[in-house]
């Protein structure tokens, strides 16, 4: 099963490699990983999307917790309701024929056109990963020049939060 694991950790050099090293050393898979400093600049928050049986996910969270630099670990699947978003920038070749269609598709998907040239559009879009997949599928493959995705990040709903 797919899990989104949030990791709050010391914002120190080498912290990212400890996490990445843990996953490769123990044979866990990483679908995506995003990381940035939090509102407290001494802490980073990492979001890891991984897949595995319940036993594997339990081990992943325990092994992450065991890293000295890790302050807290939260499996968003465990907290129930949560919001998941991914950012995509997609560069599309525009022609006389498809220009209108791309604009209306971007509208439907609540994307924004953030760059226009004579022959290209760059569309910015956020949403759950499936929505981004659906948008890509809606564009003719030969029109897509480049796709850049951030990988998902997530946050739990309600009052609780991941902090010290």
């Amino acid at each position, binding site marked *: 099963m797919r899990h989104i694991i949030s990791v709050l950790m010391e914002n120190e050099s080498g912290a990212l*490699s400890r996490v990445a090293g843990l996953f490769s050393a123990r044979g866990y898979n990483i679908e995506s990983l995003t990381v940035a400093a939090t509102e407290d600049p001494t802490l980073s928050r990492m979001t890891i999307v991984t897949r595995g049986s319940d036993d594997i996910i339990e081990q992943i969270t325990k092994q992450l*917790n*065991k890293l000295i630099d890790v302050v807290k670990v939260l499996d968003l699947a465990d907290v129930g309701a949560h919001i998941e978003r991914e950012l995509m920038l997609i560069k599309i070749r525009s022609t006389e024929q498809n220009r209108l269609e791309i604009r209306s598709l971007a509208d439907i998907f609540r994307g924004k056109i953030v760059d226009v040239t004579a022959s290209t559009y760059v569309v910015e879009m956020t949403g759950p990963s499936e929505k981004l997949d659906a948008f890509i599928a809606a564009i003719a493959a030969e029109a897509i020049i480049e796709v850049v995705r951030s990988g998902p990040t997530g946050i739990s709903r309600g009052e609780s939060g991941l902090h010290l």
Partner: protein
Amino acid sequence: MELSGAQILVQSLKDEGVEYIFGYPGGAVLHLYDALFQQQDIKHILVRHEQGATHAADGYARATGKPGVVLVTSGPGATNAITGIATAFLDSIPLVVISGQVSMPVIGSDAFQEVDMIGISRPCVKHNFLVKDVTKLAETVKKAFYIATTGRPGPVVVDIPKDMTDPNIKVPYHYPKKVSIRSYNPTVVGHKGQIKRAVDLLLSAERPIIYSGGGVVLGEASRELTEFTRLLGYPITNTLMGLGAYPATDKQFIGMLGMHGTYEANMAMHESDVIIAIGARFDDRVTGKLDRFCPHAKIIHIDVDPASISKTVKVDIPIVGEVKPVLEQMIELIKDHKHKPHKKALEAWWAQIGEWQALKCLEYDRNSPLIKPQYVIEQLWEVTKGNAYITSDVGQHQMWAAQYYRFDKPRHWINSGGLGTMGFGMPAAIGVKLGFPDADVACVTGEASIQMCIQELSTALQYDTPIKIINLNNRYMGMVRQWQEFTYESRYSHSYMDTIPDFVKLAEAYGHVGMHIDKPEEVRPALEQAFAMKDRTVFLDIITDRTENVFPMIEAGKAHNDMKLRGLDSASTDRELA
């Protein structure tokens, strides 16, 4: 007080109460060595290879319970230390390893003797630090000791660039008495409700077994384990790492379990209805085939490391906490409990265990004209009255030492259980002897293992650490040969050496006493003579039966009730069970 980085490191180690540093100098640590030269309190043990430094520090730590300290230079010094660091990591031994690094401005430029020690050591340390600010050095050292020695212990590397130890740059020195790390808070006390549930389950058991491991030794909980076990009257088995935590000569002790465990211990595990695992981690050498592991048992597991719980075997009642306080709580609860251990069921259980014991799985041919390795260990036990510190290398001799030297006290059995590092035993024995100068210290080894760190014989002379080396010389890498005999139709691929040195002359060349023993009747007198030479390191080269195998054996991937016994193949074992 203003000190240079080098002086800060040395002063921090003094303030930490360090007695010994095991190390080897080199370019990146010259400032540190100069600071060491100008003081008397900390003794530096100059090894002959950095691997030896880590093993000696490790042996010292295992025997004394204090963290071992290692000092190596950058590049090859650091990489040579890795095997020893990994050895300590797999067995949860507290080490603080200080490695020199090239100066900050040249890091990343492939400078002379530069290696990314933080990167290389990451998977085999509990934590590591690169010191980038000399004003943080003292605090970093304190953190390193704190992390190494608390929770589940382990090695910590502190990588110090040369410019951080510059004698011309002085900064105020303050060594913190205490340190706290917000992201590191190991659990000490177990969950009350879980402990109560565990005790209820334990007292309802009809075929219980206590399975304890190295965590009891590390957690200084031997006394509590003994009281707990005697209070319940249950059988107890120890892992390879847990030997000595419960007295092996006691009648409730049914031997080691696992791949080369006793028949009775493995059968009792297999047939048990309740297992309490205490500071043990369900290692593959213990469990055998996982889906046939203890099919009837409910499992309680006490461990300080939550990640050890339900890692390989799913447990029913996990208790995260230090073994000692958890056992203390359990003892109290058992004493006050409305139920007592199930007397009738226990009698039947002990009777069953007695039947398994009657098989005498550790019996061997005592009339052989050749020296049997088991006999040597039995004699070693008698001559040292069971009081010696025994270190070992890795292979058959290690298993025989574990099976036949009956350890009654914790911290006396010192071996590389997790990583299985050949070359560990002799430098470890040097470390033990430094910790306990008046104790008998023997290294049980083989002619293959001993050659992996043989150069440390020179260290043993320089620092006057008279140890006894019991070399069970069977002219084979015995354990490799045994597996090749069993599973590769005796194709002994590269498991022997065409040339073996004359160990007597070798020992003498290093300034020690060498003895050659090739008859069974010579074994006892030779051992007595060797241990009587209190001030000499003695190398006993004992020529043993080269075809001897370690039994019982659970071959890799088989279950506890599928043991190969001496003189019985596994099929007949199965018949007996049916």
